[in-house]
């Protein structure tokens, strides 16, 4: 049977395969129409690519823009002013707050509270909605100041930013962050007092960007099961994409077999020691300690919201307007240059491999999105919980809860690439 996914971004379904009324397998299907981003970005000037890729995702456009800009800077050896880079970091963090706040409070919270929507929940508890909007509003204010707007920010340039904020604005934003932090802790406390909708232990490998300087945001190495991998090693040899029999959606598995997890759960479990004091103390005061299980992903999101806000506060404390906001890209590559990079988008590792031609236009690109990587784990986890259980309304609910816990971003996941078809018969 098939049921439409709700309280997730994009168009998808959960498919439950049953035999004689007993659940055999669960998987998630992506029914979004493809937009061919890897193809339509080819041949474009690099800044056009940055702005174009932002459109892959309405929830995490900054992650895409930052991925492309950082990768191009590496390709071309562009040095970015430290303070200009700091502004892009801040924009990226503000997006993490926005995305998590929207998910936790408008999708996950109604669900764990047994409500059909935040609107319905707010009629019982108007304070929750008001506080949630205050937090989302703070993220909006930050994104508008740093990027121009909340979706499809215009201030991520190849080489830096178009326009930096001045010191006065930085001080105003610090006050916004300060009050957002209070609200985040208050709301976080509420969410942390809820019981997860499902409990399942998962020993699946957790993949995040590797970081030796605090909580991971972006980089050129990955961490999984305590081991560091280069991007080409991981995406060239380990992770393989497969298309399964019933689904047109692409799934990634290690060596084509084992599923793995990316996203807040993976970042949190790999790097909780790097979280700031405020985030750790909030969790401890509610009796949460790492590691968290997939059904408890909201705990990781709450921790990340608080951590991101504290990090934003630090970024603005030390901010000075950059002397050179945006480096002019003049270096002409003699032959096509290939560059890879990975960004921790709100939903997990976003990988990009780009080839820039000698005319400074994009020759080729490959993207691996967080949700495409999580689809296999989502299906496997739901199957583990439900296999052998009778097909019932409750089973469908659990299958939908698993999807909500992973916060899939279906618009992103759809533009698939390099599919290897495996016929299961």
């Amino acid at each position, binding site marked *: 049977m098939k049921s439409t996914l709700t309280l997730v971004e994009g168009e998808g379904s959960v498919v439950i395969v049953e035999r004689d009324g007993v659940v055999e397998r669960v998987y998630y299907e992506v029914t979004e129409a493809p937009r061919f981003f890897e193809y339509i970005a080819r041949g474009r000037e690099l800044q056009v690519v940055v702005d174009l890729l932002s459109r892959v995702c309405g929830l995490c456009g900054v992650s895409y823009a930052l991925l492309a800009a950082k990768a191009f800077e590496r390709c071309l050896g562009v040095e970015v002013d430290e303070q200009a880079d700091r502004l892009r970091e801040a924009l990226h963090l503000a997006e993490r707050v926005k995305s998590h706040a929207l998910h936790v409070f408008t999708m996950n919270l109604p669900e764990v509270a047994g409500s059909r929507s935040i609107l319905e929940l707010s009629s019982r508890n108007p304070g929750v909605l008001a506080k949630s909007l205050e937090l989302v509003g703070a993220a909006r204010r930050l994104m508008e100041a740093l990027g*121009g*707007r909340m979706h499809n920010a215009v201030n991520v340039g190849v080489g830096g930013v178009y326009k930096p904020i001045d010191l006065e604005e930085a001080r105003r934003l610090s006050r916004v962050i300060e009050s957002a932090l209070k609200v985040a802790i208050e709301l976080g406390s509420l969410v942390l007092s809820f019981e997860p909708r499902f409990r399942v232990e998962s020993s699946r490998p957790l993949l995040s960007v590797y970081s030796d300087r605090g909580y991971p945001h972006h980089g050129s190495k990955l961490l999984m099961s305590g081991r560091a991998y280069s991007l080409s090693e991981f995406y060239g040899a380990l992770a393989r994409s497969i298309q399964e029999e019933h689904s047109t959606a692409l799934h990634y598995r290690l060596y084509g077999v084992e599923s793995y997890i990316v996203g807040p759960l993976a970042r949190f479990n790999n790097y909780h020691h790097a979280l700031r004091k405020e985030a750790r103390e909030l969790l401890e005061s509610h009796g949460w300690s790492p590691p968290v299980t997939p059904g408890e992903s909201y705990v990781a999101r709450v921790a990340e919201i608080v951590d991101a806000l504290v990090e934003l506060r630090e970024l603005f404390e030390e901010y000075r307007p950059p002397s050179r906001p945006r480096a002019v890209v003049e270096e002409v590559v003699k032959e096509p240059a290939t560059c890879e990079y990975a960004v921790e988008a709100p939903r997990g590792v976003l990988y990009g491999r780009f080839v820039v031609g000698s005319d400074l236009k994009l020759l080729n690109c490959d993207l691996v999105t967080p949700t495409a990587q999580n689809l296999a784990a989502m299906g496997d986890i739901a199957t583990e919980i439900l296999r052998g259980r009778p097909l019932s309304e409750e089973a469908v609910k659990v299958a939908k809860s698993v999807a909500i816990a992973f916060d899939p971003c279906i618009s992103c996941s759809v533009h698939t690439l390099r599919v290897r078809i495996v016929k299961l018969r």
Partner: protein
Amino acid sequence: MPRIALFKLTSCSGCLNEALLALLEGDVRAKYEVVYFTEALDVEAFERADVALVEGSVTNRHQEELLKTLRSRVDFLVALGTCAVMGGVQALRVEGGVEEAKRAIYPRPELVEAYGEPLPLGAVVKVDYEVPGCPASRDSVLELLRKYALGGLPVAIYESVCAECKRAGVACVVVTKGIPCLGPVTRSSCGAICPRFERGCYGCYGLLEPGLDGGRLRVLSERLRSMGMDNSSYTALMRAYSYRAHKRLAGGSV
């Protein structure tokens, strides 16, 4: 109380997120009943609504059928954002053709159904109102919903981004900095974001059609080229954010 439904076709959900924020505003919340919106409401079935906000363009037969059904079940259908109004960035596929795009990405392209060019909603059904923008902004949606609830609609103002720069006191980036800018031909209501950030407008609200013809557009494109704008980038921006209008001005139609 008007019932409102939100739908997504081929798109990124950015406009729907902005619409969500509009719907969560206190006064709008009190005036509308949201009956369908998979991203924020756990309801799978859609029956009828007074207003529908539709994000995205039509790129396959299923969506075309869905949109026609929708049209028959709502009174007031709104095209929300650049994809729904113009076609969206996915229109760039027309350059090499969708078959080439499929082959470039999928090993079994025959399994992928996708139209050669994305259809803006207006090419399939009658559209009652357009909210431009990539993304459509929360404030534009708010304005529409507030006025619709009162029995009216926002007054249609046809002006370019230049007017917004003037009102906001933003020095013209073309004149003062020599930066190529699509502002003179782009529909207003973004608040002149790009010029405020000292970069040229790249046209994401779509071409301002009234008063614009192919000749005028050519004058602008020549001027932009003389300022150093790459010709292929100019065409790409036109296709990406103004597909329907650009094609019409060039003598074709979607």
